[in-house]
């Protein structure tokens, strides 16, 4: 017997270790569930970490009101199958309560508004740790994240004043009102995620697989067209194309790519050959060079 773990098993083991630490060190953790593949993998790892017990944390979904139907159906099925608890924070409610104002204009999005809803949902549920599926390889500000990421009592991230993390000793001590974001899959890459999904046969929303859909092209980004979300302006053209989504977020901002990859093997081949990052299709990151850093400082995922 050679006592070697392959890279996926080593990453899995590290993530399970972190999830178990979060469970032990915090009183009321939750999983931030977006319906995207990274939060699905995070949920899968959490289920594995506590098996045969049930998932000990609720799933928290911030619903922008502009979600793909496929994502919501998938979420509800997952919750049902695992007997999990689901808490939905509604951006529409934050708008109705006057806490945030809807953006206007053709590129209007509810992406930034989510932060307020998220922070309110965290406060209401009294969650002291939120587990998320962010990865360090996704975006340059995220490359600086800790596994246990400290947030002050306004939910803000201070990237220059982070606790050093050494070996595998995690420090989740906090003062009243502060909380943590926990990122168990920090060290995974997009490729690791796909290989692991295949190995573990994890179910995904159909949006990830190539399908025919009405799309709208804007600033070189292909958006899945929804008449309730997108305001058409002159020259906008809606057309049917064969596409798939590499990331899944709010309808208003999630870019699709033209693809014929309709199964996991084809997707893995496509990811291996890809020459642009998966977030290149995200209109939210394109607002400025430090768009992600700015949102994260305010309390975004």
């Amino acid at each position, binding site marked *: *017997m050679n*006592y070697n773990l392959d890279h996926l098993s080593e990453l899995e083991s590290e993530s399970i270790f972190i999830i178990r630490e979060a469970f032990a060190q915090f009183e009321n953790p939750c999983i931030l569930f977006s319906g995207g593949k990274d939060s699905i993998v995070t949920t899968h790892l959490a289920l*594995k970490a506590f098996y045969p017990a049930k998932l000990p944390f609720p799933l928290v979904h911030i619903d922008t009101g502009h979600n793909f139907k496929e994502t919501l159906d998938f979420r509800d099925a997952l919750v049902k199958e695992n007997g999990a608890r689901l808490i939905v924070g509604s951006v529409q409610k934050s708008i109705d309560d006057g806490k945030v104002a809807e953006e206007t204009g053709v590129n209007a999005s509810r992406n930034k508004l989510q932060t307020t809803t998220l922070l309110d949902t965290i406060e209401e549920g009294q969650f002291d740790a939120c587990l998320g599926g962010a990865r360090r390889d996704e975006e*340059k500000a995220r490359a600086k994240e800790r596994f246990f990421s400290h947030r002050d009592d306004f939910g803000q991230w201070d990237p220059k004043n982070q606790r050093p993390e050494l070996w595998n000793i995690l420090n989740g001590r906090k003062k009243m009102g502060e909380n943590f974001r926990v990122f168990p899959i920090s060290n995974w890459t997009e490729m690791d995620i796909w290989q692991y999904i295949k190995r573990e046969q994890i179910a995904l929303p159909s949006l990830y697989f190539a399908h025919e859909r009405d799309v709208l092209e804007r600033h070189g980004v292909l958006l899945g067209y929804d008449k309730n979300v997108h305001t058409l302006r002159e020259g906008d053209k809606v057309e049917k194309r064969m596409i798939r989504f590499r990331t899944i977020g709010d309808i208003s901002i999630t870019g699709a790519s033209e693809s014929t990859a309709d199964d996991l093997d084809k997707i893995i081949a496509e990811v291996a050959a890809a020459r*642009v990052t998966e977030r290149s299709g995200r209109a939210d990151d394109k607002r400025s060079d430090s768009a992600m850093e700015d949102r994260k400082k305010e309390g975004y995922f």
Partner: protein
Amino acid sequence: MDLLRFSTAGSVDDGKSTLIGRLLYDSKTIFEDQLESIEGASNKKGLDHVDLSLLTDGLRDEREQGITIDVAYRYFATPKRKFIIADTPGHIQYTRNMVTGASTSNLALILIDARKGILEQTKRHSFIASLLQIKHIIVCVNKMDLVDYGEETFEEIKAAYIDFASKLDVEDIRFIPISALKGDNVVDKGDKMDWYSGGSLLNTLEEIYISSDRNLIDCRFPVQNVIRPHSDEYHDYRGYAGRVESGVFKVGDEVMTLPTGFTSKIKTINCGKADVAEAFPPMSVCMTLEDDIDTSRGDMIVRVKNQPEATQDLDVMLCWLGDNKLVVGKKYIIRHTSNEARTIIKEIQYKVDINTLHRLKEDKNIAMNDISRVTLRTTKPLLVDSYKNNKSTGSFIIVDEGDFNTVAAGMII
């Protein structure tokens, strides 16, 4: 495919960013939109070349000031291995960052500018790698193109480094002459240095054997959580969740739980729904025992005949990371495996001058980035091994009781 974690350290001008950029680029890890984005940013800064350091400097302040604030993690893979680079800046809070990056690394990559030879920074990085018990060091003598690819220069630096390294505790040191800028010996060997018979850097990273670094002898399983499903199907299930830090645990093995001292046998080992016959580091598993034993988080499952030391007095090397200075006699929190206690630092033996490796016995002023040897007393016994034998049970962190920041990292002697 396995995983290799390595750390790099260096200042802006020794070619580290260029080297990392080349490894990422040649392994197709840099994407077009990233390249476009840093090309644009380089133009804005008035540079006529693409500044690859912009890839690792992710925060706005870093880009504006041209510095790296923090450890950045980078990922790339070849068909043979997946790599995680802990890229640590050489100037600000260098010790703190190098120690953090080194704590999870199998290997340290040290860059030396062929024109300058061994600098203080080279010594610092090497000492920290040795202190953190990194078993493999690759010394890249860079900018060989600027010394006419001369074998003599390379050999001189190599001899000087070997002389210096005799004071260190590193098992495996390799030397590679490279030009990160021109690419010689980085991914491909190139034709400029026929006198060098070893492999390229990437080839060495792919082939280096690291699995013998793990401790498969001393069984240590710190309990993270107790799993009690409270369901009809698993009514009596009581599982101990944790990660095997060292040794190999097999179903049927006789084990002891510490500090209670109860003995039992391993009944099952599972990882999710899958039962496994044995578990080895660094597997996260859940174990059940034949007997119902009162064991909880902070306890450790070990073999009866191979136990860690239970002690309240620790003799340690300490890297101070906090903004406030170390205060002798003050109470701190100590976190060790899944255990936590309070501690006071009783005495400072000496501080290490990390440039000369001299022991400064008179200097008791310990601030951020200082490395010192101290004695600690804890409020309850901890289950420890020496760091040299066991990184997991030999390491700990110290947390300030006021603001809960991590203020020190320690290694048990």
